[in-house]
């Protein structure tokens, strides 16, 4: 019952209809994703494994219910699993340490006692649960490599001084990273996401690219329309609004 509710919640979101529960849920998801990204930074995770962790989390809760599963535990397991999948192995001890400190700021590190080992066991078991929930399909294609290639191509179009003046690469990557706070990352193709983040970055600084028969983004991604870009952009910007509400 509750599973259905949450599943329909995400469907409703896509259709624009939102119930109170959905709003609450998306806030929780936002907070948990924020937790994942922060933990990732403290663990020294690279961008791609961090993205994998967020995607694992979102995909899990597309079909599971927040009432049944503890989101933070799922998040920790997602981090652990993502490290394995993307070849940046993290140790459970580090994950537990960082998470413990997140919840109890300025506290002493946990003693390596029974409680610690129980926590570790629960992470490992949850990992198996996540795998099963996702039918063991845990490798994803991320927009990062696309956005980087697009950046290279766009760079060659621009005057090098203009390029060095404006932090286009940093902004595009920042937008991409922030997009993982919400489920937008799982609802669109990676190429589109990449394109949109670059588009947003260029628009922010008002950079003019030469115009030919085709716009640059038409060349880069043949099947995208302006409207789609706009939609994704608005979703991305909503996430920034949500930050104010949730934290």
């Amino acid at each position, binding site marked *: 019952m509750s599973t259905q509710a949450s599943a329909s919640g995400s469907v409703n979101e896509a259709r624009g209809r939102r119930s109170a529960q959905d709003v609450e849920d998306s806030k929780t998801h936002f907070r948990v994703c*924020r937790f994942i*990204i*922060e933990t990732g*930074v*403290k*663990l*020294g*995770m*690279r*961008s791609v494994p961090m993205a994998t962790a967020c995607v694992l989390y979102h995909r899990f809760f597309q079909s599971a219910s927040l009432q049944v599963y503890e989101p933070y535990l799922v998040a920790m397991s997602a981090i652990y699993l993502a490290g394995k999948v993307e*070849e940046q192995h993290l140790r459970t*001890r*580090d994950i537990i*340490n*960082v998470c413990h*400190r*997140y919840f109890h700021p300025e506290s*002493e*590190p946990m*003693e*390596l006692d029974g409680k610690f080992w129980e926590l570790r066991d629960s992470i490992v078991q949850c990992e198996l649960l996540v795998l099963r929930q996702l039918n063991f399909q845990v490798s994803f294609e991320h927009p*990062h*490599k*696309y956005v*980087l*290639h697009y*950046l*290279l*191509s*766009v*760079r*060659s*179009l*621009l*005057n*090098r001084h203009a390029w060095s003046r404006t932090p286009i*690469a*940093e*902004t595009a*990557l*920042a*937008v991409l*990273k*922030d997009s993982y*706070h919400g489920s937008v990352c799982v609802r669109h193709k990676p*190429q589109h996401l990449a394109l949109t983040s670059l588009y947003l970055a260029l628009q922010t600084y008002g950079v003019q690219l*030469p*115009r*030919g*028969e*085709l*716009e*640059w983004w038409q*060349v*880069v*991604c*043949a099947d995208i329309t302006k409207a789609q870009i706009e939609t994704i952009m608005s979703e991305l910007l909503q996430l*920034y609004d949500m*930050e104010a509400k949730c*934290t």
Partner: protein
Amino acid sequence: MERDLLRQSVSYHGENLMLLLKCEQSENPDFKRVAADLSKTLNQSVRIVSEAHAVMPPLEQFMEVCFEERRELFYRDVERGDVVIGRINSVRDFGLFITLLCTAGGLERDIEDLEIKALCPLRCVPSTGNHDDPLSYYQIGDLLRAGVKGIDRYHEKLTLSLYSSSLPPHLDKVKLGVISKEDLPLHYTYVNVTADSSQTYEKLLESSLGLSNPLNVDYLLGKLGVSDTQTPSLMRGLQSKHFKEDDFATAIRKKQSVSWALKCVKVGVGHFKSRRYVEAMNEYNKALEIDTNNVEALVARGALYATKGSLMKAIDDFELALENCPTHRNAKKYLCQTLVERGGQLEEEEKLVTAEGLYKRAIVLDNTFQGAAEALEKLQLRIQKSLELKEQEAAKEQEKTKTVETSAEKLRKILKEEKRMKKKRKRSTSSSTSSDTSSTSSDDSSSTSRKKSKKRKHKRRRSSHGSKKHKRRASSCSDKTVDDDIEWFPAPANTSASYIDQKQSISKLISEGEQSWEKSRCEDGRGRLDDAIDRSLENLKHGAQSEASRPGRPDVNGEVTDQHRTQSISECARNRRDSSSTQSEYSQKSDRYSKEFSLQGRKRSESERGGNEKMDKGERNSHDQDDGRKSSGGSLKKDIPSNLLDIFSQIAEFEKEKKLQK
């Protein structure tokens, strides 16, 4: 070897196969023929296979930006120092005209159809060795890589140069000049490859191998200058300033390890106190595995090692602990104790110097540690005692070796002694004690000079500079060279004992000397013998006096001493220094030989020994030497073979005859 098959195989497998082939097949003549071709193939294929990322043709090509715009953009964006590739379309006497094909370096543009022409003036063409006219090296249609030297944006003129100085430093390695088709940049070749198929950007990207490279993200992030672990974010809460160093995983882990290790150490100490040493060691090792260089664990383990007796390991552990935490009180204390204990062990093993070093270190560490200071003092005394013992033994050895010396030397020695005694008796106005002291000191000096003490500092202390003087003057016993004999005993012309044969004469001298010796040590031995001795001593005196008159000439002293001794050069240098100093001090003081002699003896004894204790030792030593001397004198008598005794008797008879003649 089939050329084509090999080429195919190598281009597939790459560099590794090529290297292996070169190693294994270097002797194979077939391979040598194809090797050159293969390396070329390899270069080409390697470029494609090892792509870090997908290399795409310029975007503007896909965008179909119009001609004018592209041209405009090109002239806007090209900078000095860019590398361009073009084809020579005419060679004039003032330079080369080039039509640009593509860019290779800073800019990535599609310019082939723009028909941009550039000039490479003559002065920018380097001369190529054997050609008189540098331009004759170039022909129409050659592909040329050049650096952009000057741009006139308004008039749309480009000047190129073939000198690498026109390029920025990071492009130094780019080879300018004529190139071949293989050297054309990838994005251009791709253009040509795909131009007909008119693939979209997307399709091209997807099909590119570089896109599937899992590391392309890292590579490209690096290329674009963005850090991967500190990726920027636009969210307020994720700004880097909000992250505290203490929250990071490594910091927390470290703290956790330390406290875990401490727990293990506590358990271990519990075991240690209940004398369960094996368990204690296990706990300490566990603690050190968890947290290497944990100070507490190291100190505890060191204490355990010390208790069990492995002192060296204990010392290592304590030192490591002190490195990490120099103010750890227990570590210092235990280290001092262990050092002292180890020193004690070493003392028993007779490794005194090492022990001394350890004690000193212990004192340096903690100068309030009584045990170390006491132990050091005891040890130093012991060292000195042992040195004295060694010296005595060495002296005895020397004495023994002396007895094995040639009879000539023995004779000489006896004669010298006698002469000295006589001289003292004749000249010394001082009491017999002074002569005694001088004799004893001379004995001392001679014996010390004879000795070769191993400890250098003692050599310095006992600085045999005085003894050397004695040697020089008295030509005493330690020289073993025949040359010295000759030098010191030039055959005196007016002696009745005409020394036809030196050896014989000396043996005669010995016999005479023996006889006089046997009567009494201080007895006047008159006769020719004494004259001879006198003369020899005169020479020595002259020599000594001349040296005395030259106070500041350490070289002479050194030379003379070098001749007489078989010491090490360093010792000589030291002695030289010492001797020169004393000599300068005293040459002015006394004129008289004996005074100098005695004074030297006394002063030397004082100067040699810095402190009271040393003085005592010196006196003790001199007494010892006295004894040694006497014993050696006695042994001398015993060791002279019987045939020599005959010779002695002959000399005695001869002398008597002379006397009678007179």
